[in-house]
């Protein structure tokens, strides 16, 4: 980012006349605005996707009137939500009630700044990128609990409590399975992680041995749970809690919650694609780091993200909702031990691979090949 801005300043006469700090500040603000715009628009489109896919799965049509195939439906929805009355319940805790949607959206949106959309297409290429995503998304929990408490409604409080319990619990398998990849990659920088998976398909981290393979599914399941998507959607279980923590929210504030939810879906799908599915690598060796080629990379990453998003929607209409104790059981007694096993197995794999073959993934690939071979026979 700084490099890019420096180049820009060096090449533009009138920018040189301005103070450097001011240019930096404005540059950062513009980048933030772009990401905000991108994630919001995309979130809107994911809402459309969800409605169309669920329509198809339930043998109906879904929104197809506004724009081609109904693509602009979210704009119409947005206008509708904006023009609604902004209701704050009389017994609500006003400042907290107002603050809550902002925090939730912050948690979902701020992490996009370290996600590489393609080689070099990243707002902040940080060394602790992966850690930052996990840290920032944990802020969302605070926003949720604020919303639930400030609404002064039993549905909201119950929903918030469920959600918080679920989110902080599933943060553990989520973090551990991401850590498994950090072990393989030896870095937390997301661009570097993506670059390491270039080349053939089996360079993708998901195919680097049985533990990495398992880690991908653990990550995706834990992500579903921390996104409170079905079958883990009991924080807002419509049939019991009206709408969970945002029961009392209307109009634009509700829209922010809604956007945040879908932004977070995109975020985690993208993260999963970068961590496990090769980032912008198409599965065969091709250099996508050039100034123009990186946009092709962006398209490839986008396609992977879209696929994962589709899977999320697909799962929603295929599986029934869990009970809260089952959700906790699944987290602490199934996913957590499994992800610990993954981390241990991967460290063993890296160690053995480096000692025996001089290549940390060799042992894992060998194991995986053994499994595939056995499967075919």
């Amino acid at each position, binding site marked *: 980012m700084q490099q890019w801005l420096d180049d820009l300043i060096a090449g533009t006469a009138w920018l040189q006349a301005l*103070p450097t700090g*001011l240019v*930096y500040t404005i540059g950062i603000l513009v980048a933030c605005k772009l990401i905000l715009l991108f994630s919001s628009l995309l979130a809107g489109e994911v809402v459309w996707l969800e409605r169309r896919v669920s329509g198809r799965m339930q043998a109906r049509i879904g929104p197809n009137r506004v724009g081609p195939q109904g693509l602009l439906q979210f704009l119409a929805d947005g206008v509708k939500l904006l023009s609604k009355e902004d209701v704050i319940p009389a017994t609500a805790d006003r400042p907290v009630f107002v603050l809550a949607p902002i925090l939730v959206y912050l948690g979902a949106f701020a992490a996009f700044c370290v996600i590489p959309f393609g080689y070099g297409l990243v707002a902040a290429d940080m060394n*602790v990128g992966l850690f930052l995503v996990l840290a920032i998304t944990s802020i969302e929990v605070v926003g949720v609990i604020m919303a639930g*408490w400030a609404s002064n409604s039993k549905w909201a409080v119950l929903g918030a*409590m469920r959600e918080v319990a679920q989110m902080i619990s599933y943060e553990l398998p989520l973090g551990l399975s991401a850590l498994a990849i950090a072990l393989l990659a030896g870095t937390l920088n997301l661009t570097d992680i993506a670059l390491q998976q270039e080349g053939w398909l089996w360079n993708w981290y998901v195919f680097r041995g049985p533990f990495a393979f398992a880690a991908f599914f653990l990550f995706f399941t834990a992500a579903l749970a921390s996104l409170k998507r079905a079958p883990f959607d009991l924080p807002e279980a419509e049939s019991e809690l009206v709408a969970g923590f945002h029961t009392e929210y209307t109009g634009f504030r509700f829209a922010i919650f809604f956007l945040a939810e879908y932004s977070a879906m995109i975020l985690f799908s993208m993260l999963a694609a970068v961590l496990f599915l090769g980032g912008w690598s198409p599965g065969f060796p091709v250099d996508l780091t050039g100034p123009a080629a990186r946009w092709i990379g962006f398209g490839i990453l986008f396609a992977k993200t879209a696929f994962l998003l589709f899977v999320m929607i697909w799962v929603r209409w295929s599986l029934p909702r869990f009970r809260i104790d089952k959700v906790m059981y699944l987290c602490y007694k199934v996913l957590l031990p499994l992800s610990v096993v993954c981390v241990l197995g991967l460290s063993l794999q890296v160690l053995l691979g480096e000692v025996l073959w001089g290549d940390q993934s060799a042992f894992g690939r060998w194991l995986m090949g053994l499994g595939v071979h056995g499967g075919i026979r």
Partner: protein
Amino acid sequence: MSALALAAVGPAALPIPDLTPHLPGIVFGGLAGVSVLGAIGAATAPRIVHAAFCLLAALFGVAGLYFLLGADFVALGQVIVYVGGILVLLVFGVLLTGRTQVVLGQEGPRRPTGAILAGAAVFLGLLLAIGGTRWPAQPRPADPTPTTAPIGRAFLDPDQFLVPFEVASVLLLAALVGAAYLARRRREP
């Protein structure tokens, strides 16, 4: 947009003060302000839940300060542990025990003059000590170096912090056992 407008007028027409060298100072002031205000709010908020949420601001401000000092890993650790973990547990505990409507300060001393005076004295003492000391300050590195790998190596280096690192895990285990014991459903005779 404003930058473009200014550029159209021409930089010469509008003298813009160059604040670049002061940028770290400005950011520091903002972050420090956030954490101090948050801390004051946490100490004085009449409702316990509000106090907890004010703590959020304080913790965030401190995380920002770590970032400013180039300690990115510590900053994120602060966010994930304090904001995502401890603060949430705090609020959760308050909600579960159903004391959300308690207004603090009703049972305490009527006139907190003594406490305020003592606090002010301590504050003044600390301030004087900080001001009167020549701290061995190091210049902030212009280009922050990654800290994650050095921290990890220091933790696993037998000549540095390997033993404290392992002791910390025993500490967490003991705390876990203790917490589980205290929180477990009672089945005593």
